């Protein structure tokens, strides 16, 4: 461990169980007040996309609809990400409270937790929590109800519109956007869909007020965030840190002394080589100097013993398998990228074939229908650009 010691935060996992009191407090206040707190806190979606949470709730509360829904996205599938599982097993009541608050604000009677199939073992305990929570809600005269919906092993279902397709009993293929779920979501009704961590942060904001959250972080990246740290690190695990840290500080604390690259944001994210650690900050796009990388929280460290070719190949195999196949740039693109890097490595294609593949990722970025196909370009080009010789020899 380095000497910097990043500021560790303890909001999410802090052992606080005053659910009844918080709920009472929430239900006493007006919807406008609550929304203003969320907007004032600067909270952005913690699944990776970073849409302002308060605005999402506001839009859905204003949308026309006889029925509305709240969905907690617990389809945590990004390789290298494991924070939501920990939230759901340690502080599920915070997530449930966030959902109930959202339900009150937007006027929904029903909430769902879309739990990835890989986490089925969480179900019995989570169901018990939900049952207790329903009793509390009843005593507060709220008829909001929460149900668990199990996924069945499809990475793309973490994308909100495919998640809803899947809940409607179909293949989890992303929908065209717009319309957005705030207008037309689950069963065609206005829907708020939030990541597990986002809902847990809402709890903190309603309990402590927006300032406590807003005081953390920098500029457009406010608050704390859970990071899932894995790979070549002596301290793999889950950590709550302030947004806006530099990657250098992160590596000083979490690296193994020999870190040559960090993949920020999982397979769909960016690979940052050692020479760019200092200029790279972790947060949402904003006016930070240098590069600012958004992330759902996955941080994978690689030391010099790793072949970045193997890393890229593993990512591409992942995408090729998890592409929903709906649009050609992604379906065929992923296959071509994988075959392409293998051919260059074998010597069946010349070095400059890599440039062709780079152009292909640009096309995918522009023409793929959803974030999956678009983000393949991130890991591909950041690895090929920075570790080109490893792709060839």
């Amino acid at each position, binding site marked *: 461990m380095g000497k910097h010691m990043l500021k560790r935060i303890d909001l999410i996992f802090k052992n606080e169980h005053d659910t009844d009191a918080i709920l009472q407090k929430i239900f006493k206040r007006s919807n406008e007040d609550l929304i203003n707190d969320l907007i004032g806190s600067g909270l952005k979606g913690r699944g990776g996309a970073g849409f302002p949470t308060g605005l999402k709730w506001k839009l859905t509360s204003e949308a026309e609809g006889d029925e509305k829904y709240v969905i907690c996205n617990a389809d945590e599938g990004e390789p290298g990400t494991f924070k939501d599982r920990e939230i759901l097993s340690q502080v599920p009541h915070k997530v449930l409270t966030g959902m109930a608050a959202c339900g009150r604000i937007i006027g929904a009677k029903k909430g769902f937790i879309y739990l990835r199939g890989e986490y089925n*073992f969480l179900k019995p305990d989570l169901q018990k929590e939900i049952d207790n929570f329903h009793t509390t809600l009843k005593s507060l005269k709220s008829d909001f109800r929460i149900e668990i919906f199990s996924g069945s092993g499809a990475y793309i279902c973490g994308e909100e519109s495919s998640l809803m397709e899947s809940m409607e009993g179909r293949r989890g293929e992303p929908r065209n956007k717009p319309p957005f779920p705030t207008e037309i979501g689950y069963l065609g009704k206005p829907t708020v869909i939030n990541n597990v961590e986002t809902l847990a942060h809402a709890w903190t904001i309603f309990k402590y007020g927006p300032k406590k959250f807003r005081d953390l972080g920098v500029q457009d990246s406010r608050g704390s965030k859970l990071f899932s740290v894995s790979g070549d690190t002596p301290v793999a695990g889950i950590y709550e840190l302030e947004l806006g840290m530099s990657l250098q500080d992160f590596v000083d604390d979490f690296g193994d002394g020999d870190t040559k690259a960090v993949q920020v944001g999982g397979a769909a994210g960016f690979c940052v080589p050692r020479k760019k650690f200092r200029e790279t900050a972790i947060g949402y796009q904003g006016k930070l100097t240098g590069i600012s990388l958004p992330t759902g929280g996955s941080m994978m460290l690689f030391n010099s013993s790793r072949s970045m070719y193997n890393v890229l190949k593993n990512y591409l195999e992942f995408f090729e398998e998890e592409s929903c196949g709906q649009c050609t740039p992604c379906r065929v693109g992923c296959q071509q990228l994988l075959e392409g890097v293998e051919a260059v490595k074998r010597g069946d294609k010349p070095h400059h074939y890599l440039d062709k593949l780079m152009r292909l990722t640009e096309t995918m970025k522009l023409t793929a229908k959803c974030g999956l196909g678009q983000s393949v370009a991130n890991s591909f080009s950041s690895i090929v650009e920075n570790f080109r010789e490893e792709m060839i020899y």
Partner: protein
Amino acid sequence: MTDIQELVTGLVEKHGRKRENLLPILQGVIEKERSVSDFAMVEIAKQMGISAADVYGTATFYSFMDTEPRGEYVIRICKTITCFMKGKNQILLALEDALKIKLGETTPDRKFTLLETNCLGWCHKAPAMLINDEIYTDLTIEKVHEVIGEYKNK
């Protein structure tokens, strides 16, 4: 009525005929049978009033909805990046050795099926595997033999 028909009827009654209940119904069949056969899919289609092709198209989209016969215990070893870095290949060899089958196969007594899967969300404790819904992490060759030994005696 066959067992499968009875199972499907029960599930359809429990969840309802609406399209949005298709996944829970398919999951119910898999929980019982470990996979969903053509026969089961046709039966679901009939009872829910949708086409069998539609049920098939949906089921095959999801990696945990096996449409081929599987063993009583389905072992899924994670092959994604961190598990790969932390020696997933040796773990796979150990599993093949303990079960005397290759990846993708089912033991002749239909007790075990060995598959690979993508990230299980335990990358900080890689390598990881799932046996049905049970998770096993920080795998070593010894641990694999120990765990499989326990399952063999079940």
